[in-house]
């Protein structure tokens, strides 16, 4: 029996059995592959989507529980969402696999908390694992997207005496600080 779901502003009919987790319906049946499979037990957050605006782990959410709910995936953000712009500006992604989930968690946070504190960010984002360790850029990008100032720029190091200054300059002897 088909189920009706409201996904990214459209009502869609899906064939999957009602107990099927939303994640597999999105990925395998609807081809919305931006939402990722990471753990299958709501431990890593790679599968995060919005359900009525709240971040939800789609890997443990059966579609039977979603009748009438408004579901939004990473594809709904369109690439120009302030969080996505901040992610690009800070070059947050490394392997990138967790970032859809990170961005959906961050977007939900900013929709509910305009000027999040570090503690707010910790609370909202600690369910999303990034094995590449992009956490400090995530923090900086969230603050940037919120219009908050980032961490201070760190001054360039002094070149040591035994290298050619121009080559040193060409070699990128810049100091980089948190999230810069």
């Amino acid at each position, binding site marked *: 029996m088909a189920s009706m779901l409201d996904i990214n502003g459209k009502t869609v009919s899906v064939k999957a059995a009602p107990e099927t987790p939303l994640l597999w319906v999105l*990925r*395998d049946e609807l081809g919305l592959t*931006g939402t990722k499979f990471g753990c299958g037990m709501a431990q890593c957050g790679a599968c995060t989507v919005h359900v009525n605006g709240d971040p939800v782990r789609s890997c443990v959410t059966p579609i039977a529980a979603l009748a009438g709910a408004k579901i939004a995936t*990473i594809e709904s953000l369109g690439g120009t969402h302030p969080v996505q712009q901040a992610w690009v500006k800070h070059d947050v992604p490394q*392997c990138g696999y967790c970032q859809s989930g990170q961005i959906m968690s961050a977007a939900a946070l900013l929709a509910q908390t305009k000027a999040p504190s570090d503690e707010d960010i910790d609370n909202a984002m600690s*369910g999303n694992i990034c*094995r590449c*360790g992009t956490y400090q850029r995530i923090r900086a990008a969230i603050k940037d997207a919120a219009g908050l100032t980032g961490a201070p720029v760190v001054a360039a190091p002094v070149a040591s005496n035994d290298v050619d200054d*121009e080559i040193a300059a060409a070699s*990128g002897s810049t100091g980089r600080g948190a999230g810069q």
Partner: protein
Amino acid sequence: MNGPFEKLGRQEGVSRRDLVVGAALVGGALLVGCSPADLMSAGSKVEPGAFGPFIQFDPDGAVTVLSKHIEFGQGNHAGLAAIVAEELDADWSRVKVVHAPANAKLYGNSTAGIQLTGGSSAISNSWEQLRKAGAGARAMFVQAAATRWNVPAGEITVKDGMVGHASGKSAGFGELIADAAKVAPPENPTLKDPKTFTLIGTDRVRRKDSLVKSTGAARYTQDVQLPNMLVAVVAHAPRFGATVKSFNADEARKVAGVADVFQIPTGVAVVADTTYAARMGREALKVEWDEGKVETRSSATIAQQWRDIAAGKGPADLKWEAFDSKGDAAAASAGKGPAVFETTYDFPYLAHATMEPMNCVAIVDGSKVKLIHGSQAQTLDQMNAAKIVKTLPGSVEIETLFAGGSFGRRANFPSDYVAECVAIAHKVSGGRPVKLVWTREDDMQAGFFRPLVHHAVRVTLDKDGYPATWRHRIVTQSIMKGSPMPMKGPDQTAIEGTAGSPYLKATPVVDAQLALPEGGVPVLWWRSVGATHTAFVMEHTIDQLALKAGKDPVDYRRALYAKAGAQRHLAALNLAVEKAGPAPAAGFTRGVAVHESFGSVVAQVAEVRVVDGHPRVGRVVTAIDCGVAVSPDQVAAQMEGGTCFGLSAALYGEITLTDGKVDQSNFDTYRVLRINEAPTVETYIVPSGNPPSGVGEPGTPVIAPAVANALLALSRTPTTRLPFVQAGT
């Protein structure tokens, strides 16, 4: 994407050379004139384009760089593209990067002789090669313009993808492609003086993939959807070395969507229309395992055996291999009293736990194989797939995709999960695509762990408090055993970092030895490989020696670096200490560590406090000497990420076995670092005119000893085993 002169198309039929090379391969003997790369590329249809194997041009002049290295987070695609763009004088905003096809001859890694991304070698391995490729293509455009405009080539300029002449004539790459492609490529094009670089080393060298990785559009193996594709999951044995005795698939076959269930060498495969159906089918499957030859030891038992071996109580036939040894070995074991320092260290198995679990798409049609996946070692994957299908390695085409992390996991000698997928696709046959999906549990319990390691260290100090003798024993399982690549001397992956240490160089008498007992647990390199344990042992030992000698640990290192002539270590240490400033944040204690790996030296000053009995890291000041930093931003990103990766393992990482079964299965039992525990890493790059060295791994191994050294300063308690936080605490 493909320009008019792109020649990576198909060529039907098998050439005579393929037959010759194939015969050599099947016969197992090298023919004169056939290099190993020839053999491994046998049957390949990949041909370089007019501008060589690394550069293609669109008709509008946009540049595509073909990367022989996979991008799975390291940022190497930004750096590789920048090297080409610098020498080509391309418009950086119109340069893109794609993964090269599989061909060991064209795209081999010179450090390994096969196509492989690893050893933090992407930039260093490609530095000369891509500079020449960019400069060569530039020279072809210059010559084409000179001929068309009838002016001397020496008067032609190139800037941001525009070729020009003082007379006012100018043309984009696009307008000149047809002519430039006919110019003979120069054998030794003139390279730029690094002083004139305008792109390399600047903050303009940023990632090319941030947008697609922020929209969900980036394509990973998990995302591959092909017409008529089947999804496969495999029931694996609970213990390493077990095989299928029997299975009952009656219930599994009743699950809607399940297409077939069959035995393969690594277990029982369930293939279905969807991932969920395949998983449900596997749950309904009943398998009995033959455990005649399995590994049944617990990890605690193995660790005790390693300790016994180091203490001289191992089997008599176990071989010890010496490294870095000098002077009278007996002296290193002699002596008693306050000048003797003695300790041991234990390190657990570690899982790579990439965000994207292992997976692969394979299509087998007769003797043709196509793989679509995040291939880290294309040549190994080709050879292993070819063996299963009984074809030539070059007949195995690979479309390399982004991978959701690897940290070493995706490159292993048997190509474990790739071979599994090929075996399934071979059985399905007929060119029907099969996507193998491993769940997190499959991934975490499949092995290929960083091996369990034990170190035993005994140092005597001279009258000034510096090491006079150093006895060192390392016991671990060999990573390189089974390698098709020849190896000389002791397994470097087990000793690198102790071997070559400036502290051993500064010590007059060294007795260092390695033992490699057998084990049934598959083991593998794990981001920074040997340094994952040797950096900890050397750096934490040094702080304990400094404490014993009553000296400041930074000054103690400086003195030893002076004795060893380790100028780069000294410069990195001094830079990190200088940038850290005089005092830590209130409530924090500092620890310092320095380690060289993959040609780069990293020094860190970590600020640590103890919260609820567990270390928490705040600010980490990092200095790295990695030669020329092609992309300072991505060097910083790797220091940030590498530090988190190392800290995650140091705090929590531990795979244990009970009676041979892996105890952990998912992130609830294999804890990893989360954002609320993440440090703030500041990165400073030591100025250098040397060619680039590694960046992806050297940031990983330094944080653990830096934290241990901070805890030592705080409580005078040394750390003798990792992780810091034991399970259940």
